[in-house]
């Protein structure tokens, strides 16, 4: 660990707070996407920029320790999820990628709309996050 310089303390403290806000907002954007501006792409890009901020203010090594995620795997999971929702409808005899939606009553949230587009959009989200961070880390780690 390299010694913390005084001008980095401010940045790092701020980042801790900022990243939390950015990440929670990005999740909100992801789920709000069906009815409000937002969605997998926007949420994913926002998460990616939040994580990039983390990497920029702390050094890559320590972030990797506290965030032990292989982002290439994230891309794979995202793709599988997106293809999976498509195939799931195929198994029910509908064309590939047919989406369904319905309104349910959930105990805490009240009436809510659930749609198969949500897992698909989460897949998109994961691919975007994974791809952006993979690109970022590849460049940053190169010497």
């Amino acid at each position, binding site marked *: 660990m390299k010694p913390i310089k005084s001008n980095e303390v401010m940045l790092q403290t701020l980042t801790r707070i900022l990243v939390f806000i950015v990440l929670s907002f990005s999740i909100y*954007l992801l789920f709000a*996407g*069906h*009815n*409000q*501006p*937002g*969605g*997998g*792409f*926007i949420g994913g*890009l*926002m998460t*990616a*920029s939040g994580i*990039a901020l983390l990497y*920029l203010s702390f050094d890559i090594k320590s972030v990797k320790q506290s965030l032990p995620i292989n982002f*290439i795997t994230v*891309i*794979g999971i*995202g*793709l599988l999820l*997106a*293809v999976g929702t*498509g195939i799931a409808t195929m198994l029910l005899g509908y064309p*590939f*990628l047919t*989406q369904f*939606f*319905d309104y349910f009553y959930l105990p805490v949230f009240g009436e809510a*709309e659930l*749609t198969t*587009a949500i897992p*698909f*959009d989460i*897949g*998109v989200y994961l*691919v*975007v996050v*994974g*791809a*952006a961070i*993979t*690109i*970022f880390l*590849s*460049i*940053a*780690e*190169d010497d």
Partner: protein
Amino acid sequence: MTILHWATLSPFLFALLIPMLYKYIKRIHTGWFVLIVPLVLFIYFLSFLPVTSSGGSVNQTLNWVPSLGINFNLYVDGLSLLFALLITGIGTLVVLYSIYYLSKGTEKLNNFYVYLMMFMGAMLGIVLSDNIIVIYVFWEVTSIASSLLISYWFYRKKSIDGAVKSMLITVFGGLSMLGGFSLLYVISGTFSIRELIANADMIAESSLFLPAMLLVLLGAFTKSAQFPFHIWLPDAMEAPTPVSAYLHSATMVKAGIYLVARLTPVFGGSAEWFWIISIAGTVTLFWGSISAVRQKDLKSLLAFSTISQLGLIMTLLGLGSAAFYYSDGMEDSLYTTAVLAAVFHLVNHATFKGSLFMTAGIVDHETGTRDIRKLGGLMTIMPITATVSLVGLASMAGLPPFNGFLSKELFLQATVNVVSFDFFNLETWGVLFPVFAFVASVLTFLYCIIMFAKAFTGKFKPENYDAHVHEAPWGMLISPVILGSLVIIFGLFPNILSSSIIEPAMAAIMPHTQGFDVKISHWHGWSSPALWMTIGVIVFGLGLYMLMNKWSQTSFYLKERDPLNQVYDNWYDGLVKGSQTVTRIQMTGLLRDYIAYMAIFIVMLLGYSMIRYDAFAIDTAHVSEVTPYMWLLVLAFTAATIAVPFINNRLTAVIVISVIGFLLSLFFVQFRAPDLALTQLLVETVTIILFMLVFQRLPKLKKEKSRPRFKLVNLIVSIGVGGIFTMIALSSFAFGSDVNYDSIAEYFIENSKELAGGYNMVNVILVDFRGLDTMLEILVLAIAALGVYTLIKLRLKGSEDV
């Protein structure tokens, strides 16, 4: 998928297993596993014999591209069954032979058998398919498999040259055949052969009849090595001998024959079809036999003799098509003898030529040479090989009692029959057919004697060979001995074939004629002209052989290369040099030039379309209002954009670039596209981070040092591109706001709530209506990320040179 479909495709499926069998079961020669496939298929196809010999046919349908009329329909009748049996039967023997021919220790057996199975499957596809497009696909697969097999010993330059030659010629023919098939579709609206036959009258009246016929024949002639396209076949002899025996004498070269026979009901009866095929066949027959006499290499001799025999069968099919012109529905042996001879000789040729190739391969394998000037006296050392060769050669020469004698007599009879035809000007020119047939038969007889005498008789000279010469192992002899026995059996009892194989095949070639009753006999009486011709052939052939000392020193005999090769070589060299010149001029290695080509082409293409279709329009009536704020945005954006090329500081450049990006997101806000604005904003953020990371390690931007003339050209090209795109933007807006034009966007506006339950239409389009697009898009993104990852992380050895 029916059993028939699976059977046809089984060689392809089995080919997938071969590499694994080769890799994991090293102890057993891979050929033993492969042997199962043709053997089982042969037995399977034998089960169709009762159906076809009673005049029936089997038809199995499988839709492939039904919207285009392209279906994988399989159709088994007498003709296709004959070929299927040849392919699988000879295939079995050839695989068996190859097990001993190619040693498992040194040869790449996996490649060999994969190609061979690929070929076998494709060949079955050609002869069994009812759809001409499917035939075309399989046709090209056989060309590819053939070239791969010719270049099997790819480290030899001659193998590669031979492969390229056969590929160029046969694929060229295949392409023109595809053109012919397309014309047939244009005329008749169907790709099905049986429907084409049903519509033969309509096709004959079309003005496209002749072009379609010529193009299809070009395909058949190149494949079946007809003059002047035959030059690829001798060079194909660089392939291992099992391949020569299988592809280049028994099956693939007969694909053209099959096609001609199959399409005879469509085209037959026209004078053009009759003359083109008969003349091409006769010339090939003559040219092949005279060239074969000159050869000193056993396989080259057999190759030219194959060409000659293919010409013979082709001639017979041409002559046989006269039956369509003179057709009263009943069999008339005056006209049908030719087709009978064609079918019968097809079978006979496969048997005797297969055995001859195999024995030539044995000689090559055991002595290390195929040169008849070195060989000699092998009869005492290889008695079985010599006997089989003698049987095969005698059959090819047309001597009784072998099967070649019977079909050769039928052939001569058929050419004599032509003289008595009273149409197509045959009263005057028809006499040329028996004359050429006779001369070619004499030459055939001559090269058969030469081959046997030079290789097997005379004095054995051990000093000519590197190896110790002995008879081949038993396993290698099985296949040629079986084929040789068939030569004798078919020769003694020809009528075991007549009702089971020949009659159904003839019925398939001449569907409008009934009452075939084939009886092949050895003796036609003293008055038969064919008998006297045969006797003449023997007398003249022997005479020429006696005089060989006189003519063997002439340049005719000393030069053996086909003069037509010169034409091909010149053409090929010219093609290579020409493309090299063009490439050298065009491929400068400068990115600027390539981009300039594209930009200039885009401007020309789009500009031409604009003028040609009078597409330019400006709509000032429907434009929306420009607020002062927008003016400001546009000015700032334009100024920043124009500034970019002038910036020579990389940090400033990145800042200006990102200012442009952020301004763009403000535009999106104004365009009432919140999703776009958000996306653009975030993308720009991430992009800046990337640019910053990379730029620390990149060199400083320098002022462009290009010459002024270059810069001027660049500027003109750029302004051209910009201008054309402004015009496109204006015109497409003008046409889009036309009142009579319904936007497809209405559908999404109306249905996103009802069909997808979402209020954000953009997101609904992305995840629901156009979900597949989005899925492929994230795939692209994933690939880009992996590309970046590998670019950075992957270090190949010696990558600095890459």
